[in-house]
């Protein structure tokens, strides 16, 4: 079969296409976005009618994938780590219903928070919901494990979690692909009550899930993704999970590690293998790209066992991603001190593009709010969050998608009137709509700015579920017509825009302001494509 140069994300996508997947469901989020984008661009996926469209949020994506699994076909759902919080209700209950067609959930974690609000470790979710987790150490394993995950899911009749991290997701290397398989035929579950989680049924299903744990652990020990690499120096045993195995290897020329290593790529943990390493070595070093999950389990509450080294005892930093030098230092390797960064090198934080519509919208908002003083603008996640920094300094919160509207409600209830919410179009349909319904029912004195750039900008310009629908949605949720205002965020309309915003801020109820102008990045991409199409017609 062919060898392709693929990002980790793309390796997963290619494996899912080759692995007989019938549909992929996702909401964009760094570092997971390229999985869906690869399937959308794939000729093979098109030829095989693989369904590949963005969902409104991670929960709807998870549920749609579960529905496809119910119907007997293979489905994948992808999200960034915080997306799993949004999908958690469906995700955890899907472990109880179990799967019919193979169901693979991909969660892409972002240790060091390159593009995220936190660095939560999705392995916790896998453990919490009692399903198998696969954690590839490189792009080839990402491909192989994805193929395997569909089989494992069908064999065990439960969803499987594939956990990756930023460096694997966004690093490119050669990947060997294997023979594609056909998609499943439509096939209902044998038991038509399998997916009915009434308490009496759920209790039974939950016991079944518990009963599968021993078998899952046995599979973990046999699959080949967990294995002990025997070495003679038993003063230290090393447990290396996922990507950290590479950083370990990097510290030894020609890969000759001196200490025994247990390489972990599949959970639940293979207890016999863990025990074997533990018993044969004097100390254990645990390398985890993420939270110290295994380390904590090994130490136990009282830490009275043999020395367990890792993130909890300071051998490794408590937070952030690992790298070859951090792992090397933990092993006592000496690295030459590189040169220091010269002082004149200044930070260059990300910022709104020149000419971005958000800038004009916030300039107008800042002026409209000037007389009330600062500290009243609840916002959300997207390009517009960059307006928190200089020079705009326009917003005062960014917590989780949709929080702007709901937080404005609470703050207004507390007496902070006027309170303003600023939310992007994609974020609004992701999880702002329910907050707006609360605001309408509460008759909250808040002004909600829905920044409509007609795309999901921050993650690279994916189609927004909100496109062309915002006025109808807010009308339908009960905002009166006279308090729905659409603005053109351009410098030349600045004064008019300030006046409209001022007026709505003074109104003691819910009002919606929609500054609407396309993201200049997607606009120029569209223009380029148009020009290209034109030359091709000639």
């Amino acid at each position: 079969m062919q060898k392709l140069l693929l990002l980790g994300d793309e390796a997963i996508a290619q494996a899912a296409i080759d692995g007989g997947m019938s549909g992929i469901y996702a909401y964009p989020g760094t570092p997971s976005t390229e999985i869906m984008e690869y399937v959308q661009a794939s000729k093979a996926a098109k030829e095989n009618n693989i369904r590949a469209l963005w969902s409104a949020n991670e929960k709807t994506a998870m549920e749609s994938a579960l529905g496809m699994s119910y119907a007997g076909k293979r489905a994948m759902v992808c999200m960034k780590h915080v997306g799993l919080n949004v999908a958690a209700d469906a995700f955890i209950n899907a472990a109880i219903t179990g799967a019919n067609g193979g169901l693979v959930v991909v969660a892409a974690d972002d240790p060091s928070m390159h593009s995220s609000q936190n660095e939560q470790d999705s392995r916790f979710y896998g453990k919490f919901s009692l399903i198998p987790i696969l954690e590839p150490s490189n792009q080839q394993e990402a491909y192989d494990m994805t193929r395997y995950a569909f089989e494992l899911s069908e064999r065990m009749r439960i969803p499987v979690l594939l956990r990756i991290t930023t460096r694997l997701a966004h690093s490119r290397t050669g990947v060997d692909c294997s023979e594609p398989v056909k998609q499943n035929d439509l096939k209902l579950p044998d038991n038509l009550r399998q997916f009915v989680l009434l308490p009496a049924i759920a209790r039974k299903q939950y016991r079944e899930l518990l009963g599968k744990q021993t078998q899952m652990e046995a599979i973990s020990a046999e699959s080949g993704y967990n294995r002990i690499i025997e070495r003679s120096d038993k003063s230290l045993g090393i447990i290396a999970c996922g990507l950290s195995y590479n950083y370990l290897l990097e510290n030894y020329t020609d890969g000759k590690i001196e200490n025994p290593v247990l390489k972990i790529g599949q959970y639940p943990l293979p207890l016999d293998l863990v025990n074997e390493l533990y018993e044969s070595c004097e100390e254990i070093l645990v390398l985890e790209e993420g939270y110290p999950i295994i380390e904590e389990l090994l130490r136990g509450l009282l830490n009275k066992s043999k020395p367990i080294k890792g993130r909890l005892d300071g051998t490794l930093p408590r937070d952030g991603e690992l790298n070859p030098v951090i792992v090397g230092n933990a092993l006592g390797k000496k690295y030459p001190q590189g040169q220091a960064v010269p002082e004149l090198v200044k930070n260059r934080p990300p910022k709104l593009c020149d000419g971005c519509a958000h800038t004009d919208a916030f300039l107008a908002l800042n002026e409209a709010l000037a007389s009330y003083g600062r500290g009243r603008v609840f916002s959300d996640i997207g390009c517009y969050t960059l307006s928190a920094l200089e020079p705009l300094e326009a917003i005062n919160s960014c917590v989780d998608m949709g929080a702007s509207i709901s937080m404005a409600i609470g703050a207004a209830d507390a007496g902070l009137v006027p309170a303003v919410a600023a939310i992007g179009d994609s974020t609004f349909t992701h999880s702002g709509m329910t907050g707006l319904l609360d605001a309408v029912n509460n008759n909250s004195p808040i002004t909600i700015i829905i920044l409509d750039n007609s795309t999901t900008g921050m993650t690279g310009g994916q189609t927004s579920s909100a496109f062309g629908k915002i006025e109808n949605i807010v009308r339908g949720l009960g905002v009166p017509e006279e308090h729905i205002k659409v603005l053109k965020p351009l410098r030349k309309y600045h004064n008019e825009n300030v006046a409209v915003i001022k007026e709505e801020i003074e109104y003691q109820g819910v009002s919606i302001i929609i500054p609407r102008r396309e993201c200049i990045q997607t606009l120029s991409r569209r223009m380029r494509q148009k020009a290209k199409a034109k030359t091709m017609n000639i």
Partner: protein
Amino acid sequence: MKKDIILAGVGGQGILSIAACIGLAALEETLYLKQAEVHGMSQRGGAVQSNLRLSSDPIASDLIPAGKADLIVAVEPMESLRYLPMLDPNGWIITSINPFVNIPDYPEMEHLMKEIWKLPRYITLDANSMAKDCGSIKAANMVVLGAATPFLGLEQNSIETAVKNLFKNKGNEIVELNLKALRAGRNHALKQI
């Protein structure tokens, strides 16, 4: 053969096309390759870098260990200095001297150049003017790549093939322009070594 390269620039400057060329050339020579890219947040005008590793043996880590990079290839002078801690004491810096000023406290050009000239091994080039002379400022990336070619350990032929492949969809004229820019950068570097 083993080369660890840091590519540096500002989000939107297109360092990934340099990475793509080197990657294609490495594949042509059946080398192992790992290339860690930065996607997401910092692409909005922030500092971006890519770790590119080439080797005749399998490569373990996607990230280059600090102090071990053989080359820093930068399309922006201040960005060329940001990753100095990554550079091997015997490593080279190849950088364009055309500043991308999108912050208020960008250093004086004079001070910046003095800092670069302090380094033991560097190639500096006015990539924008050189690209303009070749036909378009858009080829500045290829000028910088060209200046890096003497250090990559790859055949000039495989790099030119990669450039041809990367631009072939855009027509012959664009291919020729980029090849010209590539060669101009290379000749400039060969004179400076």
